[in-house]
């Protein structure tokens, strides 16, 4: 199979289920089901994933100072969609392949909003589709600093 290997491990499912506050027994044990949003955690297996600090590379979070917003870093997650071709279970390896999807723009209250999709297919060792995921990101054009919306 081609694509980024994503070993679906029972311990990882347990940690993920705890993080989303779900104590269902379905998510425990060697043959645990994976929760519906679990495939997002394939980020751990992407060597290039940009939202993980890496040794020897600059990280944009705070240290001695507050850090700095990276170029184009004002983006937010606008939508997320999953299609399940079959359930995901501990003990298998999925292979993630991501391609860019559609992109479009909309006029927001404070300027143009640029939307873009990333489409990830998770296939199993036989090449069969298991989960299809679409991430929609939105980046506001212009000043990235948001207003106090709290």
């Amino acid at each position: 199979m081609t694509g980024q290997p994503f070993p679906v491990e029972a311990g990882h499912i347990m940690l993920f289920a705890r993080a989303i506050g779900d104590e269902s027994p379905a998510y425990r044990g060697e043959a645990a089901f994976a929760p519906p949003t679990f495939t997002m955690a394939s980020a751990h297996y992407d060597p290039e994933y940009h939202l993980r600090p890496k040794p020897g590379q600059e990280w944009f979070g705070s240290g001695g100072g507050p850090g700095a917003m990276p170029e184009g870093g004002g983006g937010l997650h606008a939508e997320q969609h999953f299609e399940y071709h079959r359930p995901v279970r501990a003990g298998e390896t999925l292979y993630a392949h991501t391609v860019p999807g559609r992109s479009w723009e909309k006029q927001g209250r404070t300027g143009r909003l640029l939307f873009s999709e990333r489409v990830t297919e998770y296939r199993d060792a036989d090449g069969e589709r298991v989960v299809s995921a679409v991430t929609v990101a939105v980046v506001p054009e212009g000043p990235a600093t948001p207003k106090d919306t709290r």
Partner: protein
Amino acid sequence: MSLSTDDIKVGETRESVLVDDLKRTRIVQYAGASGDFNPLHSDERFAVEAAGYPGVFAHGMLTMGMTGRVLTDWVGPEALLRFGVRFKAQVWPGDTLTATATVESFEDTLDGPVAHFSVRTVNQHGVEVVTGTAAALLEP
């Protein structure tokens, strides 16, 4: 666990309190589990001084992950065919979130009956933070 069309009806709803007084620690826990270490979600100093937010806020995917429970507790994790959401507002530490799933319709497919749901999660002020839809395969 599998539901049949006899078990649920159009218009039926399930409500679930997903989290009460969300702690920053939970957001950190999700960062570790998901691998998304964007400092917007865990690094208060970065979020305020570098990014201009009032503070750290939850990953949208944490809210979606928590919201999924109202569906999987009902139909089982193995029955879901689709789950999609739009992130409508940010979730802040201290928020209490309640999710509601509603059966909107049934559809006969070659694989069996499918239930279509709408889902929404609101905060303690009644503001929608996530809205979406889902579908699940039922027992014939």
